[in-house]
């Protein structure tokens, strides 16, 4: 059985090694800073997408005039486009910024407008809505929807968080224990998400990512043990492990929220709705996994022994692979 784990790890290494530095879910950002009554400094950071310049372009309103020469700076992970524009004495309220090409990608773009009075407005353009409207005040439901979508998107795109939840599902026996474990994970990550977002604690990303990978690696052997009918602390009290490691995952969720550059006034709302989005995404995943188990039972599929062991070994092997990869990144090897 150890051979299965080694083969799976090598397989994942072989398949994903070329995409280690891909930053495929890295968001773009647009910073608009007011310099004068009708002057704005525009910085558009387009992430590298599959090793090429990002297909999305920045399209400013037609009546904005570029002053001086725009600049372009290449970095390893992005291209920074910079220019200063004049709006011809007109207000920028209600103006639309477009990102043609964004619709064919999986990239979000965070837009942040800082005015002369230091007031800040932020919004997000997505592949499903490749444009953003510049407005000082937005109705609460617009803000709520934006952060809810962000939380939902963050957990469903975060395969490491999902794999941890899958590991828990494979260990847990019985509905009550499942409810306890998922609730425990939810409570734990909500605590650290709130603490990190409100600025009471900070977890640097490289060690955090390595620790999250370690939490997945930790579950792999436990899944195999549970399948063999053995017992352990994790198998007896999966809710305890869910709580402890849930604290780590909460810091990870906070990193997803902090990239938005949200308004201080919006902070409590942002935190609440982002967390609701994360929980909804988590529930969708849990129901999908349970649905799949139900479907296998309904279709009367009899899995061979090696196939029954595969989920546990996949969780452990991916956990091992990411732990090594992220530790190497942490130590500056990439």
């Amino acid at each position, binding site marked *: 059985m150890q051979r299965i784990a080694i083969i799976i790890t090598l397989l994942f290494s072989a398949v994903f090694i070329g995409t*280690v530095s*891909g930053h495929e879910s890295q968001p773009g950002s647009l910073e608009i800073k007011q310099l004068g009554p009708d002057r704005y400094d525009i910085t558009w950071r387009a992430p590298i997408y599959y090793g090429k310049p990002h297909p999305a372009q920045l399209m400013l309103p037609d009546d904005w005039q570029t002053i001086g020469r725009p600049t372009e700076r290449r970095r390893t992970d992005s291209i920074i486009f910079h220019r200063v524009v004049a709006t011809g004495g007109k207000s920028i309220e209600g103006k639309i910024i477009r990102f043609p090409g964004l619709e064919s990608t999986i990239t979000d773009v965070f837009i942040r407008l800082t005015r002369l009075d230091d007031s800040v407005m932020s919004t997000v353009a997505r592949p499903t809505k490749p444009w953003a409207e510049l407005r000082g005040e937005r109705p609460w439901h617009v803000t709520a929807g934006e952060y809810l979508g962000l939380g939902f998107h963050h957990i469903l795109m*975060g395969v490491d968080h999902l794999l941890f939840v899958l590991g828990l599902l494979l260990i847990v026996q019985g509905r009550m224990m499942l409810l306890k474990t998922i609730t425990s994970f939810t409570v734990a990550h909500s605590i650290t998400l709130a603490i990190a977002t409100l600025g009471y604690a900070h977890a*640097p990303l490289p060690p955090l990512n390595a620790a999250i990978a370690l939490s997945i690696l930790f579950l792999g052997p436990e899944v195999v043990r549970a399948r063999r009918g053995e017992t352990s602390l994790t198998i007896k009290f999966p809710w305890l492990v869910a709580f402890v490691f849930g604290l780590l995952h909460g810091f990870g969720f906070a*990193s997803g929220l902090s990239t938005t550059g949200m308004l201080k006034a919006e902070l409590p709302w942002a935190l609440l709705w982002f967390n609701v989005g994360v929980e909804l995404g988590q529930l969708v995943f849990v129901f999908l996994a349970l649905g799949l188990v139900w479907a296998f039972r309904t279709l009367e599929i009899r899995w061979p022994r090696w196939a029954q062991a595969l989920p546990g070994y996949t969780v452990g092997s991916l956990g091992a692979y990411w732990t090594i990869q992220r530790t190497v990144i942490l130590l500056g090897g990439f």
Partner: protein
Amino acid sequence: MKINQQVIILHKTLIAVFGLLFCPSNAAAHLVTTGMGPVYDGIGHLLLTPEDLVPALAVALYAGLRGRAPGRRALFFFPLAWLLGGFIGLAADAMPTFPVSAFSFLLVGILIAADLRLPDNAFTVLAIAVGIMHGFFNGIALKAGPGGLGLLGIMFALFVLVAIVSAFVVSLKPPWTRIVVRVAGSWVAAMGLLMIGWFFRGQV
């Protein structure tokens, strides 16, 4: 291993982990990189492309109508055939101009609407043919982007979709629910007819 020993290991691991967490270090401004982006791209491609999603759903509905054994066959052969077609598409150069996928709408839609009982082997051939054909177009479409990993994402999404939808149809007991599934099939067939009609009128 005794529980006490496990508690000690867990305790030590946590101390190490939290020790690392609170070490001063520069936070790199990027999201977690798992290398799974192209796989997600593939899943997104399937879910956001009705031309592929609807026939996949139709095959799952038809498999469910036929029962457990065809459901199992569809679950394993259909996604694998899609993947195979995808790899052929990755190696292909030209996209056929004829709307071939419209025929899978029409064919599978009619089979569902009429509740026709195909022999198990004929059903397997149908599932493989539809899978290879749609996979081929996906392969061409994904060549410039996520490529083979995107195809793996599509295969994974298809596996989940076919399992849940076909099991759901198998589990339906009241006779009227079978009629509802057949009505859904007639809509799929109608879509196929419309697509073919538009093509011959030169609007596609």
